[in-house]
């Protein structure tokens, strides 16, 4: 303490903000220093993330809750069993800048039921399934378009026809456009499910071809 008369009655002494030196540098919204060589903001991109998880109760809500509370932008999520008992695979399509994708992987890896997580390469095998219910007025034409897209008719009645198609996103989008002429009544799409190509592991530490052996947890980021 000090009883110095120079002290303000409230607050502290010292050079005011405008009297201080201020550096020129800045960071972008992702906390990256901006300098002439470095890139500016990262643009969002789509990424397919695969996670091998323990089949704990609530694992799906833990994963989806993480996405909503951290405001990660997720386009689709599929989940299903693997050949290992009590292990499931979750495949997610996300759209984020690179730092966001990095965060998604790291935050997922922190969840206790998540055994291993990784982003799939661009050449990964990926496919989506769609069910399309259209007006049944012109069954022959519907059949022809279904054939064109290697689809199958699952249900054909007097008023509606339901077909199944699989493929990548582009193919599904194109097919939906082609079916519009018949009058689409309902659509159900699954979103991507995916595996790494060839003998690559889909998630770090996974051993394809020895599927009945549990995958060892990894700290891989």
């Amino acid at each position, binding site marked *: *303490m000090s009883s110095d008369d120079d002290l303000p009655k409230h607050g*502290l002494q*010292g*050079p005011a903000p405008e009297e201080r030196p201020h550096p020129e540098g*800045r960071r972008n919204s992702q*906390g990256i220093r901006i300098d002439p060589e470095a890139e500016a903001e990262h643009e969002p991109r789509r990424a397919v993330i695969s996670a091998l998880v323990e089949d704990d109760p609530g694992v799906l809500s833990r994963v989806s809750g993480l996405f909503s509370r951290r405001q990660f932008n997720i386009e689709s999520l599929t989940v299903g069993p693997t050949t290992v008992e009590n292990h499931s695979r979750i495949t997610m399509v996300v759209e984020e800048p690179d730092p966001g994708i990095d965060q998604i992987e790291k935050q997922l890896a922190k969840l206790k039921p998540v055994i291993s997580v990784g982003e799939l390469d661009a050449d990964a095998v990926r496919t989506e399934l769609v069910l399309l219910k259209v007006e049944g007025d012109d069954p022959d034409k519907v059949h022809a378009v279904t054939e064109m897209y290697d689809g199958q008719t699952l249900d054909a009645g007097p008023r509606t026809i339901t077909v199944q198609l699989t493929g990548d996103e582009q193919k599904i989008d194109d097919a939906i456009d082609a079916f519009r002429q018949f009058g689409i009544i309902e659509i159900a799409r699954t979103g991507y499910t995916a595996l790494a190509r060839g003998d690559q592991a889909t998630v770090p530490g996974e051993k394809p071809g020895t599927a009945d052996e549990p995958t060892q*947890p990894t700290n891989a980021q």
Partner: protein
Amino acid sequence: MSKQAPPDAEEADEPETTQSPVTTGSESVIRALENEGVEAAFGVQGGAIMPVYDALYHSDIRHVTMAHEQGAAHAADAFSVVRNEPGVCLATSGPGATNLVTGIADANMDSDGLLALTGQVPSDMVGSDAFQETDTTGVTAPITKHNYFASDADTVGDTVGEALALADEGRPGPTLVDLPKDVTLGETDAEPGPAAPPETTRPQYVADEGDVQTAADAIEAAERPLLLFGGGVIKADATGEARAFARDYEIPVVTTMPGIGSFPEDDDLCLSWAGMHGTGYANMAITHTDLLIAVGTRFDDRLTGGIDTFAPEAEVIHVDIDPAEISKNVYADYPLVGDAGIVIDQLDDAINTAPEADEWREQVQTWKDEYPMDYATPDDEPLKPQFVVEVLDEATSDEAIVTTGVGQHQMWAAQYWTYREPRTWVSSHGLGTMGYGLPAAIGARIAADDDQEVVCVDGDGSFLMTIQELSVAVREELDITVAVLNNEYIGMVRQWQDAFFEGRRMAAEYNWCPEFDKLAEAFGARGFRVDDYDEVADTVEEALEYDGPSVIDFHIDPAENVYPMVPSGGANGQFALTDDQL
């Protein structure tokens, strides 16, 4: 088990009374805690948790009945901070569990190890909206490292052991086990095995050697290096390594608020803590450093201010055991994932020459002289809170523990008390929980050595939020001193209203609070009231000497504001020192 002992049993020269075998799920729960050396638990009874309490009846674990479950969670949290091991709290289902939520969220934000055990309705009633049923694992999933729904009396002990180990492993944090009544009442003879954290959460303790070398090279080349010690340094028990590193290479040190005590604040190299109400010199240093060596911090916005102007000239070395903190808020040019103490040692081994930073150290000293934390004590103004904090500091030992609520008083307690030791500053940082101070003082008192004073510096608003816990301090005869910095406002809000809402003091006046000295006496504690400078020292001495809980109601200058202040989202280097600079 037979209660009849053989006639000569009492004379038998048995080394230790062996624990009786487990017979129920709840006994297995308590056995798991005992196996891990849990000494104390904080909680409140209730229907669904009764079997667990029944098992505590025969245990040596000290149970402290709290007045409210929130107090139980905060007390366990503070116990964890002081002991650097997980604290344990218990509550029943439904409202008991939801009352814990604030304390669990607080522990989660501050990475404090905490195990919450909650009762639950019997398994076959789950989902039926039964009496006192809440989806506790659902409610607490976002604020725990992981939570468990116990489903089997045979495995519940192992589950509790795993949850306790997980709370302590790597970056600490809260875990919870929800215990349906049929599971805790269920018959079992299964003794819990050794507690181990789950396979899938194992942290990386040692940083990559190549990354360490690159970071070490950057330290050698730095002209304006600055160490930033966060709470992780204390959690990792790495204050020894951290202090030696700073001194060996003569690198100035700034801490975060949770990092207070990691480095002695009276050391020449220490600039105290940075951020919204950090010292001017800490904020100047962090603004002008060219290499920020950050250890165990998550770059909270109260530290960084606006990200665009945070350490804008600096490359960042970021040491953290949680890889998800690396480049989350501030990009790390040199990411080092690992344990704080181990990685500091790795860096030490990899550095050949100290950075040449004489000029920088001089500059830092100049800032210390330019922005002193001196305050005026005019005779014609009411008591200044800073003065009260300084008197309390002088009247207590270096090992004294300070707990606080949240607001202006918290900032003054952090600014004007000189911290020298880790785990002497116990506060609510990330969540900013008003009402943390008193239950934290109770937890800290149970955890601390007898010769460590425990002082709760509180505000009038914060104190009123959990004041019922004073009854616990009285019942347990706990020697704590509560110093209420009473300005009859929810002061930090009043400060913001004056600065940013043109002085419209909506819902900020607290002149309706009870007289805390009289209320303290009604609880059975000692109560004091202080209005003038000349009463401060004597009253502090009397309260500290009293062997039990005491409350001093300091009526302080209601117009006093906390400075320095970096407005929310502003640049650290633009901190205001007076009202007209905001």
